[in-house]
């Protein structure tokens, strides 16, 4: 995603850093906090059926808009569905879609960045012009327009986010490759007649991918926010699948007297975002420690 490109505070790393760094075994507090938060969320998502007796799509029209407490701990929505169930099952939807939506741009962007960074030339120029173009489009404008073209639905959300998101990975990895390919080991490998693909995969990739991985953590946050925003616009995960964005959107009409309908799913998004941000930060710290 092109939104909020934050340069991770990271020096070009030795490829072995993540694997064998001896002093980095101890988890730093940031990383730990991130892991705990995300872990709890994952557990809640996995064990949703055990945590709540109600199905996320089971309607009870005679008991709609029930208040907090009572039989339904977090109340019910307009169709009498249990808010807690939708919240927990919503974690499944949003985490899955969030991770997958980042996976494809990560792969495509990184591979492209690797190749054009190493080869340079006309291909590099062309791809970078394309990158400039995508960046000149505000992120949401492009994603919303793409979802309109493709139609709402989970698969199309992946496509839309990928079409915009690869740019950031491409830029990050290309930048790293430009530096790394001048390093001695890369030059030596090339002089020694090692095939290009081998240089790319064995020597450069491990070295440059760390930056992309770190970026991907904040990118997952952004993609979850994007899904929530699309849900708010009615272009997100199709109903009746539980999703935090549509929960926020559905609750908006009751903002004046039933504030919890929008607040509860919002808090869930914030906790997820915080967990992922901490995780990203934690990884940076851990790499820097060495």
């Amino acid at each position, binding site marked *: 995603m092109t939104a909020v490109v934050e340069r991770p505070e990271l020096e070009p790393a030795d490829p072995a850093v993540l694997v064998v760094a001896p002093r980095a075994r101890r988890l730093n507090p940031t990383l730990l906090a991130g892991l705990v938060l995300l872990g709890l969320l994952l557990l809640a998502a996995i064990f949703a059926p055990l945590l709540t007796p109600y199905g996320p799509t089971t309607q009870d029209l005679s008991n709609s808009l029930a208040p907090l407490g009572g039989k339904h701990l977090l109340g019910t929505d307009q169709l009498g569905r249990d808010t807690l169930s939708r919240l927990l099952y919503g974690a499944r939807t949003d985490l899955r879609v969030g991770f997958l939506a980042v996976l494809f741009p990560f792969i495509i962007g990184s591979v492209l960045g690797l190749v054009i960074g190493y080869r340079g030339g006309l291909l590099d120029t062309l791809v970078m012009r394309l990158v400039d173009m995508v960046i000149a489009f505000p992120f949401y404008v492009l994603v919303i*327009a793409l979802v309109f073209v493709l139609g709402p639905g989970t698969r199309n959300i992946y496509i839309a986010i990928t079409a915009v998101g690869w740019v950031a990975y491409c830029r990050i990895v290309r930048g790293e490759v430009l530096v790394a390919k001048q390093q001695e080991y890369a030059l030596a490998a090339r002089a020694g007649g090692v095939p290009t693909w081998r240089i790319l995969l064995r020597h450069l990739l491990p070295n440059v991918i760390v930056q992309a991985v770190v970026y991907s953590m904040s990118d997952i946050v952004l993609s979850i926010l994007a899904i929530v925003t699309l849900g708010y616009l009615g272009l997100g995960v199709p109903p009746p699948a539980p999703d935090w964005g549509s929960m926020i959107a559905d609750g908006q009409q009751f903002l004046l007297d039933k504030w919890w309908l929008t607040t509860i799913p919002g808090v869930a998004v914030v906790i997820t975002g915080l967990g992922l941000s901490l995780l990203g930060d934690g990884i940076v710290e851990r790499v820097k420690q060495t």
Partner: protein
Amino acid sequence: MAYLAFIGRRMWQLLPVLFGITLVVFFMIHLIPGDPASTLLGNRSTPQAVAALRSQFGLDEPLYQQYLDFLGRVVRGDLGSSFVYKSPVRDLVQGRISATLWLLGMGALFSLLLSVPLAVLAASRKGGARDQAVRIVPLIGLGMPAVWVGLMLQLFFALKLGWFPVSGFGASFGEHVRSIVLPAITIAVALAPILVRSLRTSLLEVLDSDYVLTARAKGISRGRLLVRHALRNAAVSSVTVLGVNIAYLVGATVIVERVFALPGLGTLMLESIYSRDFPVVQGVVIVIAVLVVLVNLATDLAHASLDPRVGVEA
């Protein structure tokens, strides 16, 4: 002269980008299923009426011809005429651009007001409790959907406390200011965390640099140094970070405008995508893209003039 040459070169590089944008926006909007004529006619869209309206809009011509017409007009500075409002796109954009610029400006300002003091606070004692807090707390802001932040601000500051209007833009200068506060805070909540972190890093760099160490050796206090040297540095960093995130900022205004019902370019564009008002969508996207590109250029120039180490040759 160097500046002019720099601007000229950058403009030249922009041309293909802008051309690409016209291409993408034109074909993307025309690819969306749904037809402006039948959308406009709604339930009354008999095939005859749709055909008549399509021909009136020039939609019965081949697509490439429509694109060339569109491109020809854009080159002459003409963005065409809205299908829905039956008035020139330029007038619509003029009517809507001020709310967007207000939002962008105030959003950036609030982000700075929020992050500069925090960053100074954090950098003044590296690794301390305050530093840790400043590093962690804004992370919460990163995870908040603008949509939800907006709704919550409305709920508390507008509905419960009545300090600001729930939404809208007002008609006078005073009303604009009051109306824009909550939307601008919504933007600042997302942007400030990034700003704080970059500022903190660059402040720490300055404080550890040789000339600062020398100054300290001469007995100038860390606090005074922070204020003296840090401010200039903070300005450079802020400009860069804001510039890098301008596209994000503009994108966020689309959402924030919708939540707060601001009559800006973002709402105009969303509304026009929904009604398939092709000329308006194309016009607004081009205006936004030019805006983004110009801000980026301005950022580079400001960066260069604030920080002598950055040359315009780069």
